[in-house]
Structures are given as C-alpha cells and as structure tokens.
C-alpha cells in the first residue's frame, strides 16, 4: 500500500539478483519479489510466522550459521544465497528429517501430485532413505473430523492449521498435544470441526494430513486442469480455481485463488462444496411444460415460440431478473425485452439482506447469497431503466393487467428468498422460470426452463465491495441448459432454428459495459484476473 510519505526502500542481493524492498519485509518476501523460490512448509502469506519447519534456511552475509529467511528482516546491502552448497545441504538435511517418520502413503494419499514433500524431494532431495520402516513412529491414521479427514501420522507439524483456526476463524479447534516426536495433531475434544471455513485447512496443509472428505479418492490431481473463475454463492465473490477433468469434462472441486483484496487465500465451505447442484438430482435438464398438473418434457423451440407470441402484448408481461445473472446477461435480456416493448422489470433478490448495515460474518461471508446485486444496480442505472422490488410487483399485480411473469437466472438449490416473488403472483398469471434446479417452491410455474449454472457461463459480476470480476465457464453446459444470452436470442426469433452466437458476453462487455463501468476501453481477454475496483456508485 503506498502512503503519502515515500518509504525508503532497501536494496538486497539474492542469488546475484538485486531487488528493492521496503525495510519491513523479510528475506523470504524479498526472494518472492525477486522471483526466487525458497523451499518452505510453515510459511503462508496470510498467516503469522512460525519458523518451525526450518526449510527456508539461507546463507546471509557470509555468516557461519544459516538463517531462516521467513523471520530475518532485510537490511540495506544484505547479500543472500539461497542455493549455495551450504544452503542446499541444509535444506536437504531438513527435508530428510521431515521424512524419517513420514508414512509411505503416497499410493493412497489424496495429496499425491500436489504434495510439498514429494515436490521438494524431487527438486532438492533424491537421497536414499536410511530408516527402516518398522522404526518409524506411528500415530492415529485417517480420522473423520467432520468435513475433513485427519491423518496424524502424515502430519509434519508445520502448525499452519493450528494458526488458521486461531487467527482466521478464531475457533481454536486444532491443537498439537504431547511433545517431541510424539507430538500429534488433533481437535481439542476429538470431535468434528465446527466452523464455516474448514475446507481451507485442506488447502493449506502441505501434505496429506488434512484432506477434504468431499474430494476423498475422487480423482488424482494430475488428471485435473484448473480454470480461473469467481464464486457465485454470495456477494463477496471469492476468486476461485475450478478443477475439471478435461477428458470427462466433469467438475471435481473448487479451490480458492489468492486475491489479497477480496478473499486472501480463503473461501467458505459453502462456496467450496455447494457445486454439487450442477450434477444433482434436482438439476433441470430439459424444458418442461406443466399443464393440468402434469409435467411434460418439451423443447426450447416450443418455449421460444410461446414466449414470442406472448410478446405481442408486452404490457401484460413482467420480467424478473435474479441478481445471480451476469452483467452481460442482464444487459442483453433487458435491452432485448425493452425493444419488444416490455416495461416492467423486477429485481429478484433477498430484500431483507440488501438493506442490512453490516451483512458480513466477520471472516468472508456476505449474507446476500447472490453475487451480482451491485452489478444489477449499475447495469440498470446505465440503461436508465427502473426496476421494481417485491412490493412494486404486488402493486403491479393489483393493477390487474398482468398475464405473464418470466423470471430468469435463478441458480442453485437454495433460493428460498425468491419464493416471495413467486407467491406475489395470483392464479391467472402464467409463470415461466429459467432456473438451474427443480425446487418445491417452483410448483406454481407453468414453464421450467433449464438454466446454465455459474460454472457453465462466462461474464462479469460486481461484488458487494464494488469490484468487477470475471466469471469463466469451466464445463460445457449440462444437457439442454442455456444461459441468458441464448434465451434472449431465441425469444427474439421465436424459434430454435439458429444457434445463438458464442462468446456473446465478450462482445457485450467490450462494446457496452467496459467504457461506462471502467471509464476506458478493455479487452475481455485482458481483464485483470484479480478484478478491478470500481468507483462508488453515485
């Protein structure tokens, strides 16, 4: 963070590379800025310094004793060597000591492929083991502690997890008991973990001691490819990477992506493990028409045709848009329906939360479970269009001219806040729902159209902090699901003969959204993966 007074930087030479850093930094951080990798286990950029793994030993200024780089402050003119013979020997020795009691679990351990012990062994170790298997210290194996499986024998006691439960969630559930090489990691009452951020423990654990039960034995990580995206389960918009198997194109896990401005290195358990609705039983896979209480599988062609016909009398139609839609989808749907003469738009959101003064939970979560309420407001103000809230919808119903209600973009299995809008509609109004999942609160609907989930569509969203972030599709659309762009295209034509253009969001973003929101041109591909902070809404 820059301050008004320029902080004098100090110059440090690491491995013959000169780098300038502020004097409050450590040698390790300076090495990171210089692009030099120093092996480490217990250091984490978002946790306090522990200095217990002793892997980041480096030579400083020809001193005889090696220093740990994570706790050595920089000094002007310091000369550091991270890969000299002496440093490498120390790192190798420390690695060997980490491995002497470590069980040979690689075939059954989920961490294989992203395990720091494996990685460092390949890069710095490659020595032959000098310990007999029967001499190893044994500790309790796989123990279920709720959402995480704890294997105390694999633990290298780096204390990242105990620091996490102490500093981030303030729940202090994980402790290390006993001393010496009998030290063991466990929950303080041998019970399950009780906080909403347990998934992060599996991320920060450098080995397979803490693994996610959701991902247990599902895939080997080298079969998966990672794609950058953004979480859509609340208005925080934590940055994520989504792991997909490119052969089966199936989604296997969601992990947080580090963004110091939004979510640091964390994501809540909801955002991490709720993705199962994408493949769940309740997922809508084909358009369904409900008449006389019977559900009929139908086609998009039929749906589009009926909707186009209904548009002949646009004054009797109200369009409901969920704040789970991307900016581009909102823009396209509104512009398209406005062109057809529709005047009434409703914002479907959890209205109680929108008005709350402090809707945050103290760590990450926002009580608004939709990701784009802020973007919704900005898009509508950009288009100079008004939208109604639930009370406004009721008033509109009261006027008596309403024939059709079309609600778009309802996502996930937890959209209870939308039921108020559905209940506000009387019997005579035909309800068409564009949603990802079939839920009991949709019983009233006449048409159920399968929507593309957040993992299947691309676009931009603005989170509650006013940050424009980019969502990217990671998996192909499930069955016949379609996003808002395809629906707008189809309704305009009233038929499903031509394919909707791909990458419509790129066009819309670059031509219509970038300039008003960012104040400048922006190519979609080059949009900062960490997002862009927007100015306050006037």
């Amino acid at each position, binding site marked *: 963070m820059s301050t008004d007074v320029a902080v004098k930087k100090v110059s440090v030479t690491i491995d013959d590379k000169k780098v300038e850093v502020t004097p409050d930094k450590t040698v390790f951080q300076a090495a990171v800025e210089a692009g030099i990798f120093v092996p480490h286990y217990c250091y984490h950029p978002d946790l306090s310094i522990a200095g217990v793994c002793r892997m980041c030993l480096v030579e400083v200024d020809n001193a005889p004793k090696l220093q740990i780089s994570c706790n050595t402050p920089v000094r002007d003119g310091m000369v550091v060597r991270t890969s000299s013979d002496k440093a490498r020997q120390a790192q190798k020795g420390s690695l060997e000591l980490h491995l002497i009691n470590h069980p040979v679990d*690689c*075939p059954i351990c989920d961490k*294989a492929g992203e395990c720091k012990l494996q990685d460092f062994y390949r890069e710095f170790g490659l020595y032959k083991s000098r310990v007999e298997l029967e001499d190893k210290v044994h500790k309790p194996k*796989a123990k279920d502690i709720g959402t995480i499986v704890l294997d105390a024998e694999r633990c290298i006691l780096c204390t990242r997890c105990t620091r996490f439960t102490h500093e981030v969630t303030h729940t202090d559930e994980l402790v290390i008991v006993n001393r010496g090489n009998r030290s063991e990691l466990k929950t303080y009452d041998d019970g399950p973990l009780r906080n909403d951020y347990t998934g992060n423990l599996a991320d920060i654990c450098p080995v397979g001691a803490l693994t996610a039960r959701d991902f*247990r*034995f599902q895939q*080997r990580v080298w079969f998966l490819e990672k794609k950058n995206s953004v979480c859509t389960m609340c208005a925080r918009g934590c940055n994520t990477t989504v792991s997909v198997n490119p052969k089966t194109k199936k989604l296997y896990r969601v992990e947080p992506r580090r963004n110091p401005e939004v979510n640091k290195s964390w994501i809540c358990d909801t955002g991490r493990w709720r993705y199962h609705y994408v493949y769940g039983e309740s997922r809508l896979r084909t358009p369904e028409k409900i008449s006389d209480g019977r559900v009929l599988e139908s086609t998009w062609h039929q749906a589009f045709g009926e909707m186009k016909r209904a548009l002949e009398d646009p004054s009797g139609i109200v369009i409901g848009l969920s704040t789970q839609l991307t900016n581009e989808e909102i823009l396209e749907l509104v512009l398209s329906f406005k062109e057809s003469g529709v005047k009434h738009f409703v914002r479907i959101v959890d209205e109680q939360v929108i008005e709350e003064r402090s809707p945050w939970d103290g760590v990450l979560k926002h009580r608004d479970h939709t990701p784009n309420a802020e973007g919704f407001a900005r898009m509508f103000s950009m288009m100079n269009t008004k939208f109604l809230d639930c009370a406004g919808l009721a008033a509109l119903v009261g006027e008596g001219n309403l024939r059709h209600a079309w609600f778009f973009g309802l996502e996930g299995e937890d959209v209870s806040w939308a039921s108020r809008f559905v209940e506000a509609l009387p019997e005579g109004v035909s309800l068409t729902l564009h949603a990802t999942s079939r839920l009991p609160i949709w019983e009233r609907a006449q048409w159920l159209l399968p929507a593309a989930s957040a993992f299947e569509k691309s676009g931009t969203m603005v989170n509650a902090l006013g940050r424009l972030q980019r969502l990217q599709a990671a998996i192909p659309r499930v069955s016949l699901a379609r996003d808002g762009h395809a629906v707008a295209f189809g309704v305009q034509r009233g038929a499903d003969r031509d394919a909707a253009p791909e990458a419509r969001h790129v066009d819309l973003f670059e031509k219509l959204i970038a300039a008003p929101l960012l104040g400048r041109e922006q190519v979609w591909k080059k949009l900062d993966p960490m997002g862009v902070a927007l100015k306050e809404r006037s």
Partner: protein
Amino acid sequence: MKRSKYRLPLSQRIYLIAILKGMGITARHFFTNLLRPGRMPNVGYPEKRRNYSPRFRGLQILTVKPNGEIRCTACMLCATACPADCIHITAAEHPNPEVEKFPKEFNIDMLRCVFCGMCEEACPVDAIRMGTRYELANFERNQFIYTKDDLMRAGNYTQSRVTRP
C-alpha cells in the same frame, strides 16, 4: 550421349535360365518340406501352440493378498502410465482402516490395450501383472471390457468369455 558398350553375357540374356533358377529355389523348399516336415517354421495352431517366455505380455492379472483381497490400492499410476488410456479405476474407502483405499471398479478396455506392460512397470505394489493369456477374440464389443472380477480371475485359463450371438 554415348551408348554403353557393355552387354550382358548370353547366359543372362536368355531369360529362361533365370526362370529355372527361381523355380529351383521353390522346388528346393517344396522337397525339404515334403521330406523333412519337422524343419518347417510353421506352428500348427490350434493343435500346437507356441511356447512363450515367462516375460510374455498377455492379459493383465490383478494380484491378491494372502487373505484373498485385491492388492491394488487404486493409486492410479497404471491408468496414468497407460499410453492407450484403457484403464479406468474408481477408488473407494476400504472398511479396514489399515488398508484404507481399494478400487471399487477396475476396468480395462482390451480393444484399446496395446500390451506394452507399462501398467505392470508403474505399479508400486505389484498389484497388476501381465499374464500369459492372449486368446481374447470375442463377438461382442462390450465383452472386451474386462472388469475387476475378470482380471482377478484372469490367471484361470478355463474361463472362456466367448458368447456366441
């Protein structure tokens, strides 16, 4: 252009001699086979079968532990090593905590398998071996997907998988 002054000798210009030479070779083979059939390189399959070395790579066998359970821990190294991408494994939790992981499904698509033996080399626990069975012809395409049970029994020759249409 100068013309070559060299001319083939008569014995080679007369084509008939070359023909007779060729026929002689054929005749020699004919009579050798007729009079000493043991020296023919052919193997009279299926009455006689070739003896292959113990390292011969045939249908895979999934080995078992002394207690009869499958040895495989579903580490997926064989699936990763396979160049033909023909091994498909689904891992599951084993009720015995000392074993922890085992394959719920272990399918090998023999139509894709090239019998290279990379799976055998990759396995860290000696759970998959290339056996000696090579008579794998069949009539149905789906019969070529060998499941975990098939592969555990693959050492037993008398099991025939052929299902006639």
